[in-house]
């Protein structure tokens, strides 16, 4: 196939993914909403997730399928431009969505976290949707400053970290939600399959402990690349500054847990805060910031 054909093929695959993740989204909403049983004596809605387990399984299957097709879309996008598929915002987004899905599937097979399927499919739909409509750029080779093996390594590490940060945020948010339910009136039935508060707390910690070294590496790889391209390994441009802030926030999170013994609610809020600094960097600095990193035409 020619480069142009490959690029078209990749776009087609992205649209297919949109459809597949939409199905996954509906399967997961169906799983939750159709599991409602009769309202019983105490007036509280009862759920029976066993009733709709099949819909949940369809959702998972769709996410797995979506992951495979997204991987193909990403691969062909890279092949069409003769380089790694993360040279501009559109490509960061589709690769990021791929990593998020991958992180979810990993967590699913390891920890059985199907309850995350709904928020994950929504996130992927939003990311891919904005990518193909707002952020889309035609496939093209890299500008000279981006031609470095460190780019591939740096951005890949950053995107994987981002995917895991997002998952950890979703877990922490779930923790906070469940915590509120349990404090007030007990967990609703639809949330019966969601792990205990303690497991949620542990899960978000372990996700972060797992990616913190990777994020550290991503920042350092970026510095090495900057050194070879601009002559300074650190110039405090807005992107670097926010990467540093994210790093500090997660280091503080780990400290708070390991040395000060923070758990539960406070840890969850700190986790969400740290994740927000990453999102802020990704969205705000990429689009509105000025600096050395804004060469990619988005």
């Amino acid at each position, binding site marked *: 196939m020619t480069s142009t054909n490959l690029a078209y093929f990749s776009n087609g695959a992205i649209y297919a993914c949109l459809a597949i993740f939409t199905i996954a989204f509906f399967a997961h909403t169906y799983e939750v909403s159709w599991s409602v049983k009769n309202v019983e004596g105490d007036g509280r809605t009862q759920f029976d997730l066993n009733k709709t387990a099949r819909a949940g399984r369809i959702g998972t299957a769709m996410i797995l399928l979506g992951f495979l097709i997204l991987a193909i879309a990403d691969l062909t996008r890279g092949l069409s431009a003769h380089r790694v598929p993360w040279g501009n915002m559109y490509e960061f987004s589709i690769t990021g969505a791929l990593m998020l899905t991958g992180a979810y599937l990993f967590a699913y097979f390891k920890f059985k976290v199907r309850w995350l399927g709904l928020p994950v499919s929504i996130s992927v739909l939003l990311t891919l949707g904005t990518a193909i409509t707002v952020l889309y750029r035609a496939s093209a080779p890299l500008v*000279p400053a981006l031609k470095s093996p460190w780019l591939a390594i740096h951005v890949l590490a950053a995107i994987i970290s981002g995917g895991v940060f997002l998952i950890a945020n979703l877990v922490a948010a779930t923790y906070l939600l469940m915590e509120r339910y349990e404090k007030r009136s007990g967990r609703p039935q639809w949330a019966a399959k969601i792990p205990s508060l303690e497991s949620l707390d542990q899960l978000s910690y372990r996700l972060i402990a797992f990616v913190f070294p990777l994020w550290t590496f991503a920042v350092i790889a970026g510095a090495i690349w900057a050194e070879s391209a601009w*002559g300074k*390994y650190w*110039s405090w441009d807005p992107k670097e500054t926010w990467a540093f802030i994210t790093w*500090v926030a997660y280091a*503080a999170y780990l400290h708070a847990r390991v040395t000060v013994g923070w758990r539960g609610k406070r840890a969850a809020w700190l986790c969400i805060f740290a994740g927000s600094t990453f999102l802020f960097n990704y969205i705000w600095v990429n689009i509105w910031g*000025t600096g050395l990193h804004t060469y990619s035409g988005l």
Partner: protein
Amino acid sequence: MSEKKSSAPDIGLIGVMRWAWRQLTSMRTALILLMLLGVAAIPGSLFPQRNQNPQRVDSYFTSDPTLAKWMDRLHLFNVYASPWFSAIYLLLFISLIGCVLPRTFHHLAAIGKQPPLTPRNLDRMEGYRLVAANSEVAIEVASKWLKRHRFRVRVTENSISAEKGYGRETGNLLFHLSLILILVGVALGSLFGMKGEAILNVGDRFINTPTSYDNINYGKFQGQGSLVPFSLTVTNFVATYDPSTSQPRNYVLTTQIANPIGTTPKLVVIKVNKPWTAGSTKLYLQANGYSPIVTVRDKTGHITFQGPVIFLPQDANLSSLGAIKIPDMTPQIGFIASFIPTAGSSAARGIFSTYPEVLDPRLVLSAWQGNLGLDTGNPQSVYSLNTSKMAKIGLKALTLGGTYDFGVGTITFDGWKAWVNVQIVDDPGKLYALYGAIFAILGLLISLFTRQRRIWVKVGNDVEIAGLAKNGIPGLEEELLALAQALEENKGGSE
């Protein structure tokens, strides 16, 4: 000021200092300083920084001078070199040293030592259980099992204390010590380094002395005499672009470099991600543009100026803007000019560039007459014309080889040259920072993926076992269960 006696017991200066040191090196202070450093970094990403974007800083000063002056006083345009940012950074540095070094000595001293003794009451520990085992051989069986699972084992008469995962603290210390190394590297770079830039036309020769630079900055302790004594001649520069999008594809700078000066020059090719290196000094290709070549003659045909003039690119298609100043004519003459590498035109935009390579160049000139203002003593940008004491006398667009007669003389558009901006950086701390970074990651990996835990076995009337996992890491329960099983089956290490 009058002497004031405090009512608190006088602990003396040393006492106060000791107290202050303990506060500074406490974990909580370090954490707060770390968070503070993160927060302090934010304003630098919100406001333009002078060393990155001086034009935008200037626009703050023109739009609201009072506000800008106050912001400047708070160092908001130079956050990362400001006293308050440095203060946080230094305090964190000291705090880190103060808390990590003692821990390191402590840890080193603990190497080879035995695990701490078994606590008296095991039943408060995690996973406490009684095991139905033969108490005669329990100690032997358990110690074999634990050794086989690479625990450090301390056996006393009727109990075992075992520990595994010392690597956690080792990795943790390695990580924190590496952070210190990174900070040292950063400090060395800013104290002993230098950074400078020079714009060179193709064909120019550059000699590495301070006066050859367009701008140069030294670290506080870096002398001027320490520049690497090389000379560089720009022999060629080629930029290739994507014909459909005008995006740059590749830049190749070809040079002849003699290091030290006087030796036979060597051919050196420099690309964007491939700097030239001499010791800790590196030379980078940073930017490029065009210098139109012009000849200016007065009424009598006498040449008053001839040569290439560096213009600054304005857009992706390299429309470039510059000033040509002729102080040697009376009255003085100046041109505000733009160089268009490949001309296109439309009714709305006039002449503009459609492609960054030079295919169909134009030189658009607006001629001014009067006083250039060069003798006021204030340094003036070479890229712009101060027209406050001048009058406009004409406007003309020239094709290659064309001549414009502006009344008191003529200007001819003879050709063009490419220029490159090279950046020369010496950062002697770079390697330390890099090693620090590598060890930091190593330390993190070791510490985050090592599970540290203790297991105790006590033999009295019953056989009791229990454990303790640092940070409540999961997996201890299974381990204790396996040990219990081994004890019950009396198997231990033997098969």
